[in-house]
């Protein structure tokens, strides 16, 4: 395996100042190789989006190291981060698709903008925007619309298409399938699987354990700001080690098999507080 595209070691992130200062991530270490997909799961508020934002330089880290594609970015200043993001090496799909997309830009401009920044001609950029819109199964009719005029799932797919157009080395996807119907979820997951072949490193954040199990090579579990478990996807799902992971896996609702009862969940939760 080649050198990891993303190397995070011993990362700390704090939010807020003085009295409001709180630690959101503590000593998090995680590598993602080219062509590898790492699923990041965990409790709400455990720091998944924070980790994603830190990797994109959208929140400053207070300790540890981040290396992207061989480049140590830990000490970067805002200007350098902006330049890195503009180069399109790393892309990010925000959890809230309304925030990934500028509400005032048409879908076409949203898709074309990152390409224009890379120096692609307008004509070429529009052609590529259409190709990627098609890949996420959206019609070109949406191009002149603004985000407020399309549905939640449509917005989410536009955000995915936008992350793909620049052909980045690393994509961090924060809940990219949560607002999608099952057909579109399957399609987006299949697209992401295809990307693996082209050597892109993916961090896939999701509460949908089925999607994570289906797409990730490895799964990392965050709990209260710490990585409590990292392992091969099948192992984490089938033989979860940490009590939180056990609670998580057994709470997932499924159509076919019974998930844990309320009493069983309460029992597992009690284990966590000891």
């Amino acid at each position, binding site marked *: 395996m080649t050198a990891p595209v993303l190397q995070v070691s011993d990362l700390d992130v704090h*939010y*807020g100042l003085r009295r409001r200062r709180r630690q959101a991530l503590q000593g998090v270490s995680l590598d993602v190789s080219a062509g590898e997909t790492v699923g990041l*799961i*965990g*409790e*709400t*508020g*455990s720091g*998944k*989006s924070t980790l994603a934002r830190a990797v994109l330089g959208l929140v400053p880290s207070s300790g540890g190291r981040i290396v992207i594609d061989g480049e140590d970015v830990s000490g970067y200043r805002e200007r350098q981060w902006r330049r890195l993001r503009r180069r399109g090496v790393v892309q990010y799909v925000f*959890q*809230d*698709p*309304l*925030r990934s997309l500028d509400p005032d830009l048409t879908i076409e401009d949203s898709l074309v903008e990152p390409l224009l920044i890379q120096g692609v001609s307008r004509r070429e950029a529009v052609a590529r925007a259409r190709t990627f819109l098609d890949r996420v199964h959206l019609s070109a009719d949406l191009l002149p619309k603004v985000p*407020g*005029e*399309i*549905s*939640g*799932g*449509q917005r989410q*797919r536009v955000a995915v298409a936008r992350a793909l157009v620049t052909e980045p080395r690393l994509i961090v996807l924060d*809940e990219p399938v*949560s*607002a*999608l*119907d*099952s*057909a*579109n*979820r*399957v399609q987006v*997951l299949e697209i992401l699987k295809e990307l693996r072949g082209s050597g892109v490193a993916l961090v896939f954040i999701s*509460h*949908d*354990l*089925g*999607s994570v*199990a*289906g797409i990730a090579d490895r799964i990392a579990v965050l709990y209260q700001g710490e990585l409590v478990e990292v392992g091969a*996807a*099948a192992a984490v*799902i*089938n033989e979860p080690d940490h009590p939180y992971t056990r*609670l*998580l*896996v057994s*709470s*997932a*609702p*499924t*159509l*076919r*098999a019974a*998930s844990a009862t*309320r009493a069983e*969940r309460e029992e597992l*939760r009690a284990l966590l507080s000891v």
Partner: protein
Amino acid sequence: MTLLSEKPAAVRPAPTVDPVLSLRDVRIGNPHTGAEIVHGVSLELTPGKVVGVVGESGSGKTLTCRAALGILPANLAVTSGSIEIAGADISTLGSREWTALRGSTISAVFQDPASYLNPSIQVGPQVAEVLRVKKGLKRREARHRAIELLQAVHLRQPELVYSQYPHELSGGMLQRILIAAACAADPQVLIADEATTALDVTVQAEILDLLADLRDSTGLALVVVSHDLAVVAQLCEEVLVMRDGAVVEHGPTSQVLYRPEHDYTRLLIDEHEQYGLHRFVKGKNVPEEQAS
């Protein structure tokens, strides 16, 4: 900890079959261009009933919910059919009547929580505001009750969260704030449009328990819009399947999700199952699985 205010059981509305929300052949479109997006949705909610709405992305689920709350985007309108909330035809309601109804009779939690909160005001006071306006609570009581509500939706450190701003909270935390705000004024109907998608499954399970408790104790009626068929199966007794602005199948959950009649419903379930967790968990597989 409970979401319920101390409403004695005896005061509860007597069981009645009168629907609290009913939609009859509701069509939604752009009245100027004549373009129609939703082609006739009917559903009836009696107290304590839970109806699920599933289906294709862009099929009109959110617009239908918005129509029921009288908050369609400016360019769209209900072009035919009727909507009644607690017996009142909403087309006759003025803005003052709507204000009285929203929150206390009908309430909602939508897909994108951040856009329903004021970014420059701490979240707790936004929940307390609902209690002051809708329930007439005094400032101190409202604060106290709001913190109780934050605790009921399983937010850790509710007092800290109370004084945080929306941008300081995670997606799932925001979603729980909105659920707390939506339940604050003890509504009779709650529309939950992808209201648990930002939550991890452990918290989701707790919120679903909470909604089920509210249904049992106060007769809360729910419309649950979700792409997660398993959530709908767990919570809803009746399901509507929408595709391209139309309802393709509508019936009891046991039938629609387990013995679907329409091809689209079958496809929806098959696709859902393609990334169902049971496929990846050894020993949890059921016979159907072995065939594929």
